[in-house]
């Protein structure tokens, strides 16, 4: 596989950086699913673990969502605190700016974070709170960055929120710091949120190839490292269409080349590592990467053998939405699992093209329609397993369909070579569990046969 520069992105896609020539599809009242832009912004920024994240609005936006994500930290845990201005009736009438200012002061004074991210929500946006001004004033006064994130829920989808968070990083964080003089410069990982610790597996791999991570944007990140992200030599956008704009902007501002890749599946992992070395323009590193990937791939092939035997020809329906679809398909294919149905609900045309490249002709595309629509495909295609987000987990359980959670709340890391092995194991355990037979059986007294005396 030769490393090539991919440049033909669909820049009209919702969530991309360039001006929208095609508006984001409007969520349909009565059958919308999925989170708001505020949710998206938090998904992108909460993995900056040592920062404080303050939600400006009535309680529900923070109260219903804090501690709900699978992003892990290896050290500081301040980002796991739920901070909210918790506006009440009179705050709404008289304005919440004073409370916001006091809250920022309070957090800075008590927790001394390196930075505070402040999120607007629908109500504070609607009543016209001037968050930018409050943040600026507080930041100047306190001497720490106080960063407004203007991504209230009602502006759009989660994807848009990811992008708006990226914009906030570009505008307020990236380029404001410098690394220690001796720091080896390497790659920024963009859009990898360390769900279930995936970032750690990836970093370990990169380190064994001698590639260092400059900034993690943002899995298990520290605020400071993002301030010097502009010094990296390569940007990798990990399965995230919404943050492509960030990479593109960094290319034009700082001349950092970027590529889009994934760590799901051995092939994609190898490709990503090679691409890094290639873009770093380092022959020696490329050779190291080749040696490493060859060794890892052959070891993985060994380890996978027993599982491949079991998984070969098994049929899966995959519903993850967006970018992850195509990358997970690659991983499943390597395990011999056939993807008979795939969700394209949040995918762009480009995603769909890539999905088409990877699946067979008879794979069904599931555009939208929620759980009922997915179940229909599972039944019609006689799928053995459903692979989707936590939202659909209990839908599958009610229908007694084996299930693997692939989204941000999950507890298993599937990235890299180790991750693929883990995925193979999880699939096998799930399919082999005795519960499927037991749940399908009826109580003995419900059986027709009369008691034989």
């Amino acid at each position, binding site marked *: 596989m030769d490393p090539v520069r991919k440049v033909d992105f669909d820049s009209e896609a919702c969530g991309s950086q360039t001006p929208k020539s095609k508006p984001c599809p409007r969520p349909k009242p009565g059958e919308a*699913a999925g989170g708001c832009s505020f*949710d998206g912004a938090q998904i992108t920024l909460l993995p900056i673990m040592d920062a404080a994240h303050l939600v400006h609005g009535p*309680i*529900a936006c923070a109260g*219903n969502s804090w*501690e709900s994500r699978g992003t892990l930290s290896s050290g500081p845990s301040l980002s796991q605190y*739920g*901070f909210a201005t918790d506006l009440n009736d009179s705050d709404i009438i008289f304005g919440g700016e004073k409370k916001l200012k006091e809250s920022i002061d309070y957090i800075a004074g008590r927790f001394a974070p390196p930075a505070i991210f402040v999120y607007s929500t629908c109500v504070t946006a*609607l009543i016209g709170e001037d968050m930018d001004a409050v943040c600026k004033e507080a930041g100047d006064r306190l001497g720490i960055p106080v960063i407004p994130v203007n991504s209230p829920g009602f502006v759009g989808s989660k994807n848009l929120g990811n992008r708006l968070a990226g914009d906030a990083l570009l505008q307020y964080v990236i380029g404001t710091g410098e690394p220690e003089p001796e720091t080896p410069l390497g790659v920024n990982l963009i859009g990898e949120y360390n769900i279930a610790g995936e970032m750690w597996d990836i970093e370990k791999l990169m380190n064994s190839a001698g590639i260092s991570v400059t900034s993690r944007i943002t899995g298990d990140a520290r605020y400071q490292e993002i301030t010097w992200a502009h010094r990296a030599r390569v940007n990798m956008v990990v399965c995230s269409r919404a943050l492509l704009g960030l990479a593109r902007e960094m290319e034009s501002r700082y001349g950092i080349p970027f590529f889009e890749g994934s760590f799901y599946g051995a092939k994609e992992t190898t490709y990503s590592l090679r691409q890094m070395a290639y873009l770093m323009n380092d022959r020696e590193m490329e050779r190291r990467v080749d040696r490493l990937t060859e060794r890892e791939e052959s070891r993985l092939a060994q380890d996978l053998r027993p599982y491949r035997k079991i998984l070969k020809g098994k049929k899966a329906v995959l519903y993850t939405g967006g970018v992850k679809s195509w990358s997970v398909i690659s991983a499943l294919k390597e395990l011999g699992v056939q993807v008979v149905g795939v969700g394209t609900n949040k995918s762009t045309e480009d995603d769909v093209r890539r999905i088409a490249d990877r699946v067979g002709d008879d794979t069904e595309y599931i555009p939208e329609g929620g759980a009922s629509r997915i179940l229909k495909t599972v039944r019609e295609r006689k799928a053995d397993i459903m692979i989707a987000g936590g939202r659909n987990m209990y839908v599958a359980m009610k229908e007694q369909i084996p299930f693997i959670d692939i989204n941000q709340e999950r507890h298993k890391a599937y990235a890299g070579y180790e991750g693929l092995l883990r995925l193979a194991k999880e699939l096998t355990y799930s399919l082999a569990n005795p519960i499927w037979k037991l749940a399908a059986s009826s109580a003995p007294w419900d059986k027709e046969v009369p008691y034989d005396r």
Partner: protein
Amino acid sequence: MTVNKRKKPASVNPIKTGQSLGAVLALQGCYRAMPLIHGSQGCSAFPKALLTRHFREPIAVQTSALQEMDVIFDANRNLEEALNIVLSKHRPDIIGIIGTELTDVAGVDYATMLKSYKRERNLRGGLAFSVVLPDFRGSLESGFSGAVEAMIDEMIQQAGHRGSRTVNTRQITLLPGSFLTPADVMELKEMISAFGFEVIAVPDISTSLSGHLLTGFSPLTRGGVPLDSMLQSLQSGLTIAVGASMERPARRLHNALGTPYKVFSGAMGLKASDDLLHFLHQISGEPVPLRYCWQRENLLDSMLDAHFQFAGMSVVTALEPDHLHSVSGWLEELGVEQKALIASYETPVVAGMEREVWIGDMDDAEVLGKDADLWISNSHGMAGAARIGAAFMPAGFPVWNELGAYMSASVGYRGAMDWTNKAGNLLMQREAGHRESSIRHR
């Protein structure tokens, strides 16, 4: 006694969830229902995810999916669209429209819109109501009882028989508060019916969120109290409300239909269980079934066994108001020190408690409960409990760090016994852990 608040501008690690989540929960206890949140899509996605995580069941909820411009110009157009889709696609028996802070601040009048919608579409046979539940007021508890109140209002309207009804004195309407688990509701229903009453719980999460495989997946609620039973409940001779927050809906029934009601602030612990059973005994004239006499003995015996464990122990409790009141009553009987009681927001019941109550968040629990041995709260308290070194006992909503929490009962003698044992076991494990680490450090 007194209600206090620590002075701090921001909420740090909130206990509170939004009111609208409480309303969504209430509707899960009605068969073939669909809560429709009139707000932006996040306002339904978050509650759905959180309820799913707690109950480990699919949760029925939809949204009018407002976007910025809709809020400013015509939010009700979205609502109408949502209603059209939900009605034509799923044909629910019950629709509850839940107004949010967004529609409240924007001043959207959806009650009138719903009225004319019902008139135009000739919506007979089903139940459709709306309720205003902005999240800058109250919490899960008030959202839950507010939704039940609105639902009951609509039932009374629809049945249209003010005063003139045939009262069934053997039938009791149970209004279970938001803090009761499906297993609690089941237990309460059993207790009441053990005295020969028919009981209709409104809402009834014991048959919907308890985990059953009867109907497979449906976008509507599966299980819960069916609409005809709900309407039939209007004939009940008595209402029993569990949780002070359920008094308002009970009063609605009383004011409109003359149904007498009795409010139990909780049913956890010896005294609370005694009160409930004694009341049932008196109104029915039936003897207290033997099994409850046994369970009472069992509880007392387990409390005797456990009291060594609780000696000198202190507890910090952070819950929704009614739940806090109920749990605190049980803790009283264990003889532990109640270091701090923290409620998510202020209600008359917490203001009237003999102990000092704080209105606050998990951070307050951490500060005020410093050095406590046991910490009782929803799963958001886990990190704080670990920081102060307290044993953590999950209770309330949401709980995600324990399997089957939604099926654990705390009401009745058996519930109190289970909880007493559970708390005692946690303290024992903690002690063993301490011993272990002191050995290792030597």
